[in-house]
């Protein structure tokens, strides 16, 4: 059997991912998110592990330096890499939403009518672009790297596109959800060639995860 390589996202998905792997029968207690070591390979383990930033996981998988990756659908949508999306792991749920300030939400339509274009701030320009072009709306996208909710408060943008899980940040900043773009959760992805040449190994890993997920639900 060929050894598999799996890239795991740091951040919110890290904890539940370890729990899932543990349930699926892989002892991954040695994996630590904050350790300096980022690549783990042991002779007695059938899988090598790589711990990476979420946004980089699809890249590692697309290039085939790892066979598999666990990453959020939100990241997959934004990175648009050519990878197979095999399994919805269910955890790490959040949503892509369009958000506007409570104070000016009623004026957005008027602004659009007069200026012909809305300004939208986001960390996810690709998702934003695709969504608004599908709706047939003209928008100017302002790419920010964090704290996007600030943008409409200081008049940088009319709306924002962001990820929300609980919605608390929105409330605190007096922002309201206008529309939902997509739902997201953790996904198992696989490299094109690995899915062909290591099909048996990948498939048996998928089955183990599926069993563990079923057990989890119970």
């Amino acid at each position, binding site marked *: 059997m060929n050894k598999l390589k799996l890239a795991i996202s740091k951040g919110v998905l890290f904890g539940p991912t370890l729990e899932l792997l543990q349930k699926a029968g892989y002892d991954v207690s040695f994996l630590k998110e904050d350790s300096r070591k980022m690549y783990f390979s042991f002779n007695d383990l059938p899988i090598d592990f790589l711990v990476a930033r979420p946004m980089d996981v699809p890249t590692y998988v697309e290039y085939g330096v790892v066979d598999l990756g666990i990453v959020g659908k939100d990241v997959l949508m934004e990175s648009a890499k050519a990878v*197979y*999306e095999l399994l919805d792991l269910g955890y790490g749920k959040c949503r892509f939403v369009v958000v506007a300030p409570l104070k000016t939400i009623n004026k957005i339509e008027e602004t659009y009518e007069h200026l012909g274009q809305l300004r939208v701030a986001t960390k996810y320009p690709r998702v934003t672009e695709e969504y608004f072009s599908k709706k047939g709306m003209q928008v100017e996208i302002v790419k920010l790297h964090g704290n996007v909710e600030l943008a409409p408060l200081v008049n940088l943008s009319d709306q924002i596109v962001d990820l929300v899980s609980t919605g608390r940040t929105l409330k605190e900043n007096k922002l309201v959800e206008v529309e939902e773009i997509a739902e997201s959760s953790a996904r198992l992805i696989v490299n*094109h*060639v690995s899915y062909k040449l290591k099909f048996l190994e990948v*498939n048996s890993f998928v089955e183990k995860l599926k069993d563990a997920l079923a057990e989890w639900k119970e």
Partner: protein
Amino acid sequence: MKETLSYFVPPGVRDILPVETAEVRSIEENLRETFKKWGYEEIITPTFEYLDALLVEAGEMVRRETIKFFDTDGKLLALRPEMTTPIARVVAQRFRKKIPPFRLYYLTNVFREEPPQRGQQREFFQAGAELIGGSGSVADAEVIALMVEGLRNLGLKKFKAGISQIEIIRGLIESANFPIETQEEIKKALSQKDLVGLSKLVKESPISESKFPLMEVLSLRGGQEILQKASVYLKNEESRRAIDNLAGVYQLLKSYELTDFINFDLGVVRNFDYYTGIIFEVCAEGLGFPIGGGGRYDHLLSEFGWDMPAAGFAIGIERTHIALAEQKVLKPKKEKRVLLFSTKDAELLFKVAKTLRQPNLEMENSLNLFTLEENIELAKKKGIKWVIDVDNYPSLKVVDVVSGKSQVCLSNELRKILR
């Protein structure tokens, strides 16, 4: 003072320097030998053509990725994004009085707008072959066998061609009678390899999963036994004929002893809309992207006015090069390199060089009347194995740069010494 021009090349194109060029060309020459052994003839078509002619049956993706520009009369031109369509055009327009089948091959550059992060250049090189005027499993098996044998002759070891028929998945989707939007969504999820989204679409569809076994069929992968399994799911006439064709192809490839390098993979998806029958793609260990693929395109030639069945394939030269390097089977041809010099007489050097130049020997003339020591120093830096002093012609002094040993010989004995 004149400023140095600091222009670099645009993104997505690149210079290929001698070491890499030698390896790329040796791959191409090797493939050329294989193609010729099968009776294929080389063809050259224009680098750019009318956009409409290049995109006759191209899919949305290729349409978007084609590099376009205007002719002086305002007509739209484009750099060829692939070679199958131009060859179909040439055959349909120019081969009318010839007797099919036609066996044609090419080794050339093609052009596509691709996002640079994919490790794909805007200009890249392809080798490929087209068998035009033949149909059925015999013709299908020939193009697959030729591709596999070409890759094997390159020394590639760990690779597999995954084979399917386009009718299988298409027939399944069309026979389910989905509304057009659902069909489009399914096709989009398929091309994006989004199996999670796909299985959601299947679950949400009004048709029961047992009547629409898309996910099961997509994951069928393996040897001959797959065809048996597939026929359990596939009831429509078109799919049955496709399965029979695959069985026929398998038997022929078995006769040619190539079955170690193929498997059936009903999840193969290709990005060209012109395919009508068998489709296949090759994956090699050591590279995360497929290195080649192809299929049958029976309606493409009729677009140019001659209705004729055809099939073919293309291999990406750069990707094959990487796979060969990763599998450590790259065998660049090494010529013998020699630096010829005289310490005092350039005319003598030219005269001797004329008599000594021969095949399989790369002989450079020293441009200066250097001493032996200076020439050895230069040869060392440039990785040249021998230096030859011609001052006492017809007697030659041959020095092995690495060991420092020298011998004297007559010019007709040189070949024996340069072993």
